[in-house]
């Protein structure tokens, strides 16, 4: 009895630091933000008082619906691009890289040695009007106006670049777990290389696809750095709006309300996604 009790209290003890951290830095701030989102400004004072002002939510949605929709479109396209770029890369690292595997994995995470802001600023140079990249794109007709910077394309390119490792790593982890003999069995059972991929490799790597898309999509929707540096006035995302409401316009209630709406919509989207894509993937994972 005594040991069982001690063992159980040990579990709580191990959970304590994490729980404490989440309560202090997540639950409590969330509570204050929820309260703030329902406050009304006392006119001309920059002070707020609690009034159950649901109108904050209505106004936030009415005023910023364009940026809202744009955020989801940009994040969605960037996630898709990440998946298309990362899958073959992860596949090669997992199955074909041999002794280069560690080096290639290192190359994937190497950008983290430089800060996010500096890397995004570097893209400003890469996509500037004078850059050879822009000239090439212009020459082949992909940038008819002759400039890429301050367009939606630049923002999406930046997000894709910045979040690529978050897609590659979970994909690699799930591909690497696949038993190569299962792939041999598929070929032995008359499946060509391509049908082996679609019928065996891809289904078995779905847990990685789900994890990678979530790790990319969720932070990408709320991102404001890429739109701030690489986008123009017409490419602002919801993150930029929230940032400017908080830091420039000091409209804390509207910013909080907008944050909550964003959180709710992301949760709904993710929930639907997991319901459809995730159930299959999680079953695959269970059976591996």
């Amino acid at each position, binding site marked *: 009895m005594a040991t069982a009790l001690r063992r159980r209290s040990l579990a709580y003890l191990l959970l304590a630091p994490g729980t404490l951290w989440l309560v202090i830095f997540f639950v409590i701030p969330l509570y204050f933000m929820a309260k703030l989102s329902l406050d009304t400004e006392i006119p001309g004072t920059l002070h707020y008082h609690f009034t159950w002002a649901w109108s904050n939510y209505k106004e936030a949605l009415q005023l910023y619906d364009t940026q809202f929709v744009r955020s989801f479109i940009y994040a969605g396209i960037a996630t898709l691009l990440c998946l298309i770029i990362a899958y073959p890369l992860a596949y090669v690292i997992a199955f074909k890289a041999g002794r280069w595997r560690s080096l290639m994995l290192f190359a994937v995470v190497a950008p983290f040695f430089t800060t996010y802001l500096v890397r995004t600023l570097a893209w400003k140079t890469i996509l500037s009007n004078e850059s050879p990249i822009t000239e090439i794109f212009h020459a082949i007709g992909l940038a008819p106006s002759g400039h890429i910077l301050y367009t939606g394309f630049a923002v999406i390119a930046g997000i894709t670049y910045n979040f690529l490792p978050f897609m590659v790593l979970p994909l690699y982890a799930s591909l690497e777990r696949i*038993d190569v*003999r*299962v792939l*041999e*069995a*598929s*070929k*032995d*059972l*008359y*499946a*060509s290389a391509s*049908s082996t991929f679609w*019928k*065996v490799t891809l*289904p*078995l790597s779905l847990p990685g696809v789900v994890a990678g898309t979530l790790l990319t999509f969720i932070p990408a929707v709320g991102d404001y750095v890429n739109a701030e540096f690489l986008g123009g006035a017409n490419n602002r995302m919801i993150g930029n709006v929230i940032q400017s409401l908080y830091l420039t316009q000091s409209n804390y209630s509207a910013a909080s309300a907008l944050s909550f709406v964003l959180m709710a919509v992301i949760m709904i989207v993710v929930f639907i996604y997991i319901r459809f894509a995730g159930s299959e993937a999680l*079953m*695959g994972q*269970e*059976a*591996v």
Partner: protein
Amino acid sequence: MSGPEQTTITEPETSTAESPSVALRNVTKRFDDFTAVDDLSLELGRGEFFTLLGPSGCGKTTTLRMIAGFERPTSGEIAIEGEDVAALPPHKRPTNTVFQSYALFPHLSVEKNVGFGLKRKGVGKDEIAERVAAELQRVGLAREANRRPSQLSGGMQQRVALARALVNLPKVLLLDEPLGALDLKLRKGLQVELKRIQREVGITFVYVTHDQEEALTMSDRIAVMNRGHVEQVSVPEEVYDRPTTTFVAGFIGVSNLMPATVAGAGRVRLDGGPEVGADTGDLDNGERCAAVVRPEKLTVSLDGVGAEVDGKPRVEGVVESSLYLGTATQIVVNLGGDVRMTVLVPNADEAERQRLPGGGAKVSLSWAPEHMHVVRESPNGSG
């Protein structure tokens, strides 16, 4: 299918009906500087249960993988029913494999696993359902059709792997130590079942194992492999009773080998022992060889002297150990110079058993001349 066909007409040379099920001609496989299979030639009859037997690293699995198409031979030819398959990838060969680890598709149900091959071949939905159901019935898994491989025991997974391969009615079924991961009791049961299924379907089985007992029980013929070479190909009785090399003799059963030299046609001289009449086959005069006598064919006695009393060869030695095994007593006799012979005496009579010599006793071993068999020194080392 495998029976000899009585016909008065000479078969035309081109007839594929007469070509062997699987033919390997001078097949060599090198991995970098390691030669896994060295100039191997084998012909397998149709409907034959053929076993590749040998220790790990002898090249048996590599040979199997070359027939399946997972490995390309460095040189040599592989033909299945007369058709050269060397250039074909695995999915275009008329072979199916039962993998050592089963390699079932974890994301598919038992039914979908078994139907996988037929679906890829474009067989109709109804026919797939019918054939899958019949195959699951055969291996006794009809009720597990909708379960996932992870929900099945090792023995059940093994049956799914077998059904998944057999349902496609391949010309050759390749089995890579399929029972290796199972416990002894389950393995014995599945050996019998596998043999029954093989007779039932009449498909050529190529079976890879390192377990000599399994090979002797199940095979029509056995190829004993060592270091990439085939040392002997024969029926189980022949491999057991008349091994041709020291390696085969040692690998099959207890290695009761007495080093000897050929002393003229039909004579060998045992090292430090008598000259004995024996079938020396194509061994040359003066060539080194070994004499084999199976443990159960040896007689141990305390009173022996001389070389050939009443026509039976004798050698002398000292008892090293005596071990009671229940049905028999195992006595190890040291003939000197690191040559040890194991004798198995059946425990028929308790009084007789009490009289058996114990450790340290000087004894002589004798045997009927027809039970001694001369094998050549293994050309490929002892493995």
